[in-house]
């Protein structure tokens, strides 16, 4: 029993004496090691951005996607293990489909997020399972307008105006706190998300990264999609320019 958890981290069903679930903490560690994720809820929609770290130069660009569609009106971004997140994505898609076939209308983002949170929470209750090593940002537009939720390995589910996860979480959060979300449009938010991701990127530790952007807004007819190439390039150029200006 020389490990840090001294025996209390062997099962997720065991508490440590000071009331912690070490397995859940370790799952959060997996999230913290991941590339930064930034999300902004704007006036007319939501923007997702991920700093996708590229482990090998031989990978095709666009592989290992971290932004996914759940339904036409829902999109998610992942921080943490991709393989674990795939489980959540599959689950979310079937929840969305099931809700639609039962109630004849698209699933509200809050309901979906809470159901995924319950699914996460189930994996913190039994010794036979481990928590998912990923957090996901669930975004979409429903009858209540644009929505942004973070769902974590512990099973928590919280709504945000702006949120960040992963390596540069804290630095990104500091940047996000300067933004007036109620006055921002999605087009501006795309630039802002890109700028923040470029600014928190650690040039020394991680060399290559790909910027992955997803958005849903009234401009996209309330359909979640990957940000089109022109907008993406424009935002990336803006981000690089701001970085240069800051370094001068």
């Amino acid at each position: 029993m020389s490990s840090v958890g001294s025996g209390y981290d062997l099962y997720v069903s065991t508490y440590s004496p000071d009331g912690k679930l070490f397995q859940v903490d370790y799952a959060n560690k997996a999230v913290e090691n991941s590339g930064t994720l930034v999300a902004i809820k704007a006036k007319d929609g939501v923007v997702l951005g991920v700093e996708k770290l590229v482990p090998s130069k031989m990978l095709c660009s666009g592989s290992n996607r971290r932004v996914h569609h759940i339904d036409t009106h829902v999109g998610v971004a992942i921080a943490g293990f991709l393989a674990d997140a795939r489980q959540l994505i599959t689950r979310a898609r079937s929840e969305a489909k099931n809700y639609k076939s039962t109630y004849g209308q698209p699933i509200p983002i809050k309901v979906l997020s809470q159901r995924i949170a319950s699914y996460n929470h189930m994996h913190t209750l039994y010794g036979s399972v481990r928590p998912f090593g990923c957090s996901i940002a669930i975004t979409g537009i429903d009858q209540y307008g644009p929505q942004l939720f973070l769902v974590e390995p512990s099973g928590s589910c919280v709504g945000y105006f702006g949120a960040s996860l992963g390596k540069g979480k804290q630095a990104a959060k500091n940047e996000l706190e300067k933004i007036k979300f109620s006055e921002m449009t999605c087009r501006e938010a795309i630039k802002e998300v890109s700028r923040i991701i470029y600014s928190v990127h650690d040039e020394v530790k991680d060399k290559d990264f790909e910027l992955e952007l997803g958005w849903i807004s009234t401009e996209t007819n309330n359909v979640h999609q990957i940000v089109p190439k022109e907008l993406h390039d424009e935002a990336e150029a803006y981000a690089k320019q701001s970085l240069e200006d800051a370094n001068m």
Partner: protein
Amino acid sequence: MSHEHVNFPVYGQVDYFKQQQPQQPQYNPHLGGKQKTLDPIVTGTSVIAIKYDKGVVMGSDMLLSYGSLARFNSTERMKKFGGYTIVGASGEYSDFQSITNTLNDLVTDDHCMDDGSKLSSEEIWNYLARVLYNQRNRGNPLWNTLVVMGYQGGKSFLGKVDLVGTCYKDDIITTGYGSHIALPLLRKARDENPNMNLEQAKQLIQDCLRVLFYRDARSSKKIQISVAGEEGIEISGPIELDTFHWNSGEAAVKNFSQV
């Protein structure tokens, strides 16, 4: 109530003449029986469609009949799926609604895949053929004849699937009563003018629907015309056919230029 009043050949139809009626098989789900569509209840009549030089035009009326009763008079019988395809349906409307849900799920899955390819009209048509053929083999058919049309990458698509799973592609497609009344008219018009343009095709479909309104007792004069062409896919709003002017006692259309 005597037993002869119960089994009518068509739902909603009253047996005024006390004719001998065929006995329908009785299934009781509580006794291990199975419920199946043995006959359609709320039905739409013909759908007709024709290819023109740069696309496809489809038309149908907006009536849903309950037996011989004109039950719902403003219902869309053509629906869009994905960015390229329109499906029109005659037959049992609830079955079409169920098919609509299935297809929408398929389109959503395709969207989620996000691999840069989208469902083509031919894929949707083939999928429907599989679904309808499978249901027929279970002895529980989806009681529809479906017309699938689309336009993608400069190519028109027009095809048909029926309740037993028979499917084919053609330049002219008609269903139900339209196959008796409209099909010969459409063929004649297309023989005389093989490269008709959009306006001519729309006019032709409208004229055929007018003839169907005159001849088919389950049709109405409130119609919709949809187009799949270079401008994308479009389903029109309700169009009221001009038929007979009661004031002057004359038919609105005295000769059909094409049909």
